């Protein structure tokens, strides 16, 4: 039996390795995805590094030179050009100077649309700057009256940030790990469809089944070959990630994503069961479809499930429950590994077992389907 499996597996790998177009389709993803993420991050980091000066409309600015100077020091400037300034108006009341000199509250009016999501950040920025100026002036007034300004602060909050630099970029890290897991599904997707739905369409499946071998042998050989190519896709994306992420100036964000050899080995070990499950799932769905084209649509649709599981972890939704599920748990473990946190072993073990059970189930279901004449001849 082992001998027969080897013969079938070798043929599958030989056949698949000559299918240049399918291999290239997998490689495009494995090479393109990390480079895409890097470009995105570089643009994002550039924006964070040099925040643009905020230009707003300030009415009656001559009345409050001190406030204006303070705003300028916080990158908020007055502008008369309606095109370049944000739609925020700060109106300084006419009696501002008088109220200030009398030590009474002076009024400034902030006019803006708070329902505008894009403006909200800028409105907050202006509000904070004014509040800070207000509290500085108030402190000075207390000092001039011989009162300790700290009386005004009943509680002082001291924050000890325990985040290590690496644990900060959770979301970005999630995206990076997501690209790795998706590689397992996408790298060999075309090969999976070609070797199952394609084989049937080319009439070689019925010839294969006419030979003295069990349908499970055929299915296992196909899953083995698809898994081999999935894992190759994973290795390519890991190597490309290692070099491309090294070029992103992470330091500006206060964390870094480094693909170490240890992480690469860890991901290969964690992802092998996922690759097996992905291969068996794709073979199963492809055999269920009646034609090559139908298989392409179904496989793409079915891949939304693992993608959703992976994304749930990336965006940290219902982590407590979801982290026990296959793929989500593996993704979580990979993220924790990069952050340098302890690996959630029970979750990882359980989800790996579930992943393997699913693989066995899909294999048997596919083998059973191959015994049905309706499936073999696409009736």
């Amino acid at each position, binding site marked *: 039996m082992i*001998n*027969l499996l080897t*013969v*079938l597996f070798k*043929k599958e790998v*030989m*056949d698949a390795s*000559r*299918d240049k177009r399918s291999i290239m389709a997998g490689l495009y993803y494995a090479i393109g995805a990390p480079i895409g993420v890097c470009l995105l991050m570089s643009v994002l980091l550039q924006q964070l590094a040099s925040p643009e000066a905020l230009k707003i409309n300030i009415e009656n600015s001559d009345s409050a030179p001190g406030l204006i100077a303070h705003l300028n020091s916080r990158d908020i400037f007055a502008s008369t050009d309606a095109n370049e300034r944000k739609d925020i108006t700060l109106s300084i009341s006419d009696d501002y100077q008088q109220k200030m000199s009398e030590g009474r509250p002076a009024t400034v009016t902030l006019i803006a649309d708070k329902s505008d999501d894009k403006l909200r950040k800028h409105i907050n920025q202006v509000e904070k700057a004014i509040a800070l100026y207000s509290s500085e002036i108030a402190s000075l007034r207390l000092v001039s009256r011989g009162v300790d300004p700290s009386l005004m602060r009943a509680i002082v909050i001291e924050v000890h940030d325990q985040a290590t630099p690496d644990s900060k970029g959770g979301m970005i890290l999630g995206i990076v790990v997501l690209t790795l897991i998706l590689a397992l599904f996408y790298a060999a997707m075309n090969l999976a469809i070609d070797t199952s739905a394609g084989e049937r369409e*080319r*009439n*070689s*499946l*019925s*010839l*294969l*089944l*006419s*030979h*003295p*071998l069990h349908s499970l042998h055929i299915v296992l050989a196909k899953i083995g070959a698809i898994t081999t190519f999935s894992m190759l896709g994973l290795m390519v994306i890991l190597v490309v990630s290692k070099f491309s992420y090294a070029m992103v100036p992470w330091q500006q964000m206060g964390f870094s994503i480094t693909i170490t050899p240890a992480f690469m080995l860890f991901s290969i070990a964690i992802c092998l069961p996922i690759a097996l499950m992905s291969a068996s799932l794709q073979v199963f769905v492809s055999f269920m479809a009646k034609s090559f084209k139908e298989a392409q649509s179904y496989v793409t649709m079915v891949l939304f499930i693992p993608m959703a599981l992976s994304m749930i972890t990336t965006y940290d939704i219902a982590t407590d429950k979801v982290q026990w599920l296959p793929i989500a748990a593996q993704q979580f473990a990979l993220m924790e590994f990069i952050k340098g946190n302890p690996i959630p072993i029970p979750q990882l073990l359980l989800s790996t077992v579930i992943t393997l059970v699913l693989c066995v189930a899909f294999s048997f279901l596919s083998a059973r389907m191959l015994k049905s*004449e309706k499936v*073999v*001849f696409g*009736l």
Partner: protein
Amino acid sequence: MIKVTNLNKKIGDVNALNGLSFTAQDGKITGLLGPNGAGKTTCLRTVFGLLKADSGNAEIDGIDVAKEPMVAKQKLGLFPDPCGLYERLTPREYITFFAQLSGLNASDAKQATIDVINKLAMNDIADRRCQGFSQGQRMKTALAQAVVHNPSNIILDEPTRGLDVMSTRILRELLLLLKAQGHCVLFSSHVMQEVAALCDHVVIMANGQVIAQGSVAELCEHAGKETLEEAFVALIGSDEGIAA
């Protein structure tokens, strides 16, 4: 020996096989002759265990295909229609692969492949990928696959379709050689000349059942006609599906 007894098979609403019974003897070439849609391919697929008969059984050398498919299949070689080639493999790889699936070990399979490639005079294409092969080259590759493991029974589904004269002659010579070696050869066709020239025993079928069987001479005599073609038309009662 291939023995089919009272096979019934319904595909959808169509009775593809309708109480089909015949026997193909060792050392003889048996032709399954019938118009398009007569149930020839369904019958052969049932013999191969790819389709399950609703009732009746098919035996290979006395082994019931439905009960012991693995043992029965080992005694069979199949030339399917369509050929079922792997476009990205070369004939040598393709033939060796199927030889190993049929139970030969790696070195025996390699040697058997070399032998069959020589026998079918296909050394010129043996190491080219099957993609872009002509119909004749495809036929030779599929035929080599069917006989490489030297099975006692060989089944061919429409082997002469689309072949030129030279390829047809090679096929004919090979079938005669297999017959001389004592193999049981069963092939389906709707080409009268081929059947008349080759077959020792002809089974004429239509609508999933046997209309008449016997040697070419017996059938002509039975129908009171000069040629097999005329006898065939007289026996099935229409001129449907006869290819020149």
